């Protein structure tokens, strides 16, 4: 395979990579449009076409792909809604999806920072204390079996009664999801140095802090960054969940909620696409940091 690939030119290699993606994408789009017709057809026929006799297949297709509140919106409707909301409205307008994305990403990033810190502190404590390893670690794992959807309103009520609203409660929920992968991966990473490395530092008469900073921390980096990528994606979900019970003021979660209140499916789908893009951007950010910070790049 490698030999045949080397024989192709640069453009050929690009085509070799892009063609399957494009083909599958095309198939998905065709299926999506077909599914949209199939799901929307009953409503189109009932609402508009039954009034005008003698309608044909073209009318049905046109109606199904341009419905106001479709069961499944066509891809171009979602794309138009997404682009329209960004282009037509100023950045600080609640109708602009970038505004909501900024609100959500602020909560995500704050929660991610707090969660990473909490996870790191927990991991260091667990690695150094047998008591915490035995008593606390099982509860950290158990904490993730509690559905975050149930925790979110509790946290919002408690913090709200303390006078904290806005970004901070959402960041706490996002932290709750973020700290777990970081803590687990760091515990694994900090313990990854083998007997040989530990004994080498022992022969150098390295102190415990020296052994920690010069052996354990660098050894944990390859474990840390994949966890951070998982963590920031989980943090985004946490921030969106945190926006659901707050009464829908701003943020992608609020956008999803208002969309489902008013049955505005196009809005739900465009908010979903926007949050997927945001998740991609945030994960990309962490991957970039990984490439810059890990010697030798991504492993």
């Amino acid at each position, binding site marked *: 395979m490698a030999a045949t690939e080397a024989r192709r030119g640069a453009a050929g290699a690009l085509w070799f990579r892009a063609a399957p993606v494009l083909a599958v994408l095309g198939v998905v789009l065709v299926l999506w449009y077909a599914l949209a017709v199939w799901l929307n057809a009953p409503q189109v026929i009932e609402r508009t076409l039954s009034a005008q006799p003698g309608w044909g297949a073209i009318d049905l297709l046109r109606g199904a792909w341009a419905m106001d509140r479709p069961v499944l919106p066509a891809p171009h409707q979602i794309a138009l809604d997404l682009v329209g909301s960004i282009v037509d409205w100023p950045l600080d307008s609640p109708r602009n999806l970038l505004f909501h994305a900024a609100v959500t990403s602020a909560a995500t990033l704050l929660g991610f920072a707090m969660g990473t810190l909490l996870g790191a502190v927990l991991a260091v404590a667990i690695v150094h204390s047998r008591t915490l390893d*035995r008593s606390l670690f099982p509860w950290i794992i158990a904490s993730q079996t509690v559905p975050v959807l149930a925790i979110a309103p509790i946290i919002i009520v408690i913090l709200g009664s303390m006078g904290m609203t806005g970004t901070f409660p959402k960041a706490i929920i996002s932290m709750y999801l973020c700290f777990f992968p970081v803590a687990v991966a760091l515990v694994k990473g900090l313990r990854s140095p083998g007997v040989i490395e530990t004994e080498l530092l022992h022969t150098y008469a390295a102190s415990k802090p020296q052994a920690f900073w010069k052996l354990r921390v660098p050894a944990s980096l390859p474990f840390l960054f994949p966890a951070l990528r998982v963590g920031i994606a989980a943090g985004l979900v946490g921030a969106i969940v945190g926006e659901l019970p707050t009464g829908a003021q701003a943020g992608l979660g609020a956008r999803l909620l208002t969309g489902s209140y008013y049955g505005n499916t196009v809005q739900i789908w465009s908010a979903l696409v926007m*949050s*997927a893009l945001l998740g991609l951007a945030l994960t990309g950010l962490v991957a970039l940091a990984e490439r810059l910070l890990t010697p030798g790049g991504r492993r």
Partner: protein
Amino acid sequence: MTALVALIRAQRLATLAAVFAALSFVLPLGFSAKGQALHWPNVAGPFVFACCGLFTALLAVLRPPRRLAPVLGFALLGALAALAPLILLATDVAAALDAATWRSGFWCYTFALACLGVTTVRRLAALEPGGGFSAALSAYGTPLLFGAWVIVLWQLLVRAFDVPQVLLPAPSAVWRALWASFGVLAGDFEQTVLHAVLIGLVAGSALGFVVGVLIDRSAFLQRGLLPLAALASTVPLVGIAPIMVMWFGFDWHSKAAVVVVMTFFPMLVNTLAGLAGHWSLKRHTAGGHVDNLTGEFAPICQHVTAEQVDLHALMAPAFLGKRQNNRFGQWQCHSCRGRKAFIFRS
């Protein structure tokens, strides 16, 4: 004397617990409306348990046990000590107190209890796992004991500070609510777990497994579908819930559909990792080898077919999930009766 100092120095936390437990017998627990001070001897039931607490704290200073039975007995005594303030809070003595304020004696005992709790957890964790039973006890007992102490202190602090139930209910209130609405919760369990989760889980993982195998078998799909699957998996699945309700209605079908979507991606990713990552390695261990002439995988002897090799290789990673760490593998054909060992080239 020096022996006592050495003991105290070795057991600082337990000494702290003993000192504060003793203080709680001297200082007033609270004041009644008439201005009368409340002490442990004024309340019969809690008094017994408070004495037990003082005894336990003193015992903790004197003897750091190493074996299983004393450690367990120590944990049990600590649990008895925790009963004193819990009973005190539950009785109507607390209601008769002046504005329900707790004084220094009560806080001293609570602090002593916290120290005692940390000591018991620490000792159970430090237990050297010997046999099967004590190892299991150390592995499962430590987190359970830790959780129990957290619940005890939670109950104590919430009741003593009289935290509004809207903010943080006491564990006892949670337990009462759980017991009272048992029937409703059982119905919810049936609806959520037996309908939505089980059906969704089976359907979602089956779908993920099948799609994973299909992607793995076809290089075209692997290059085409994987980037799109990665993109789709960044969609926060909470947002899918309202769409699923719109499509499948308010019954359990919509919930099962969400579960299907949520289980699909992890299953797909892990199936692919199991298949692709160690595919060639697994084929080796399953009885295949690289043919010298064609450069392709072939069964190692004529008694197995290529399909059998593939099937064997397919099942191993998905269900065992174990990596083949050693570079040497052995495979035995039952017909040839000859063991063939070979070395993997990575």
